[in-house]
């Protein structure tokens, strides 16, 4: 049972991972959709906080490997966001679309906030404009994409939950 559930979540994670490294560069939006955050948050609310933290750490390391200049920053930010999301827990948001959208929006903002602070590259007005304008826009696009993802994968996620 646990294997089937884990397989379902792994499939969703891999699909979103591929979207992050294929669709996102193709679109090339300044406020791009963060499929990695969607993947981590959708899974984090369905697993225990420790597991969520590890998944967040792994996803962050993947992001860090692509941008070595701030190696570790995404990993730490994603660990914190995933751990906190899992602690907030699944029963509350798992299948509610509106709450999921708000959750993803907040999660993306939290990730960007933590990442930008840990990375330490931007400061002053540049940091503020990145957070207020671009991270907010990215939060919106990520939330919308996350809701679509949830609708697409709902049967799989529900089965995984029932099996658990």
């Amino acid at each position, binding site marked *: 049972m646990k294997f089937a559930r884990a397989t379902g979540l792994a499939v969703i994670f891999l699909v979103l991972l591929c979207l992050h490294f294929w669709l996102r560069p193709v679109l090339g939006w300044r406020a791009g959709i963060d499929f990695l955050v969607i993947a981590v948050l959708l899974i984090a609310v369905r697993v225990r906080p*420790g597991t969520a933290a590890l998944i967040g750490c792994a996803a962050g390391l993947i992001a860090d490997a692509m941008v070595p200049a701030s*190696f570790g920053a995404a990993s730490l930010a994603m660990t914190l966001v995933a751990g906190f999301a899992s602690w907030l827990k699944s029963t509350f948001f798992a299948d509610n679309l509106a709450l999921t959208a708000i959750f993803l929006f907040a999660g993306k903002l939290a990730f960007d906030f933590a990442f930008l602070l840990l990375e330490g590259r931007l400061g002053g007005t540049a940091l503020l404009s990145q957070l207020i304008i671009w991270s907010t826009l990215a939060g919106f696009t990520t939330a919308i994409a996350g809701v679509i993802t949830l609708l697409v994968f709902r049967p799989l996620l529900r089965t995984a939950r029932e099996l658990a």
Partner: protein
Amino acid sequence: MAVGRSSRGDQNDARVDGVLLAVAILVAIVAMALPASRSDEMAANLRSTILAPLVSLQEKAEHTRRVFAANDSATLTTDSLVLRALDAERLASENARLRDMLGLGARLRGGFVSAEALHGPELGEEHTLVLNVGTTAGVRTFSAVIAAGGIVGYVSSVSGESSVAIVWPHPDFRVSAMADSGAAAGIVSAYGGDGASRSLMQLRGVPYRTPLEIGARIISSGIGGTFPRGIPIGTVLDTLPSDQGWARNYLVMPAVHPADANAVLVLLRDRARADLRSVWAEPAAAASVTQRAVRAGDSLSRAVAPPPNTVRDTGGTGR
């Protein structure tokens, strides 16, 4: 007992979660604390092993995006080229007219001023042109206005720096005309009427004993003092009915359409009595003058801006 076991289980789970969370945070902090060289090396190792498929995927995505961007760019370039091609046709036509004017000016050998003709857009101004030359350039009332093809009109009013000319479709326009051979004479005016015939002329009052053939060339006769002898007016298209038994009337295709006259020559008064038949009777000489001017212009432009990757033409006769 069961509650107690469950509580212990929860405590254990919470402990495990805490440990895993701490491990994850520790890993991330260690990764952040690594020196740049080590972190670069680790990132490179990850990219070349576990993440290699993702890196490949991202490269393909970037390539796809570049292809889309290149396609957009190619579309824009094609659109620009089409616009330029359309513009080139207009430029070629204008260029041909200017070359003709250049040739005419060379053949006239002085006694004229060149002018730009502005067509009045207002109602009632369709038969007039505003010229950018006036009395300071020697233009006077009734000065002849001509183009490379022939007669355009004459100056009806003039001021210091500009003048107004009426063109041949004007109801008041008249020019004394004759056949190219000198055999027949008459008066040419606008034919009027509706539709396409508005752009035609009529030759009236040709003596009955000197009929004209269809296609005969009509030129100015020089009578009246406005137009010198020998300027082309048009060619005979057809005969027109005549209400007078002693004269014939003809329909004439004009040599120049005023709408095409953007650059014109205004003949000065001292040329009014000249005979200009030779000016339009030497097409070979005219072509030669034009070709020389064009060759000289092309050579100059090549000399000023030689193309970077082309072999320079050193055999041109105009160089």
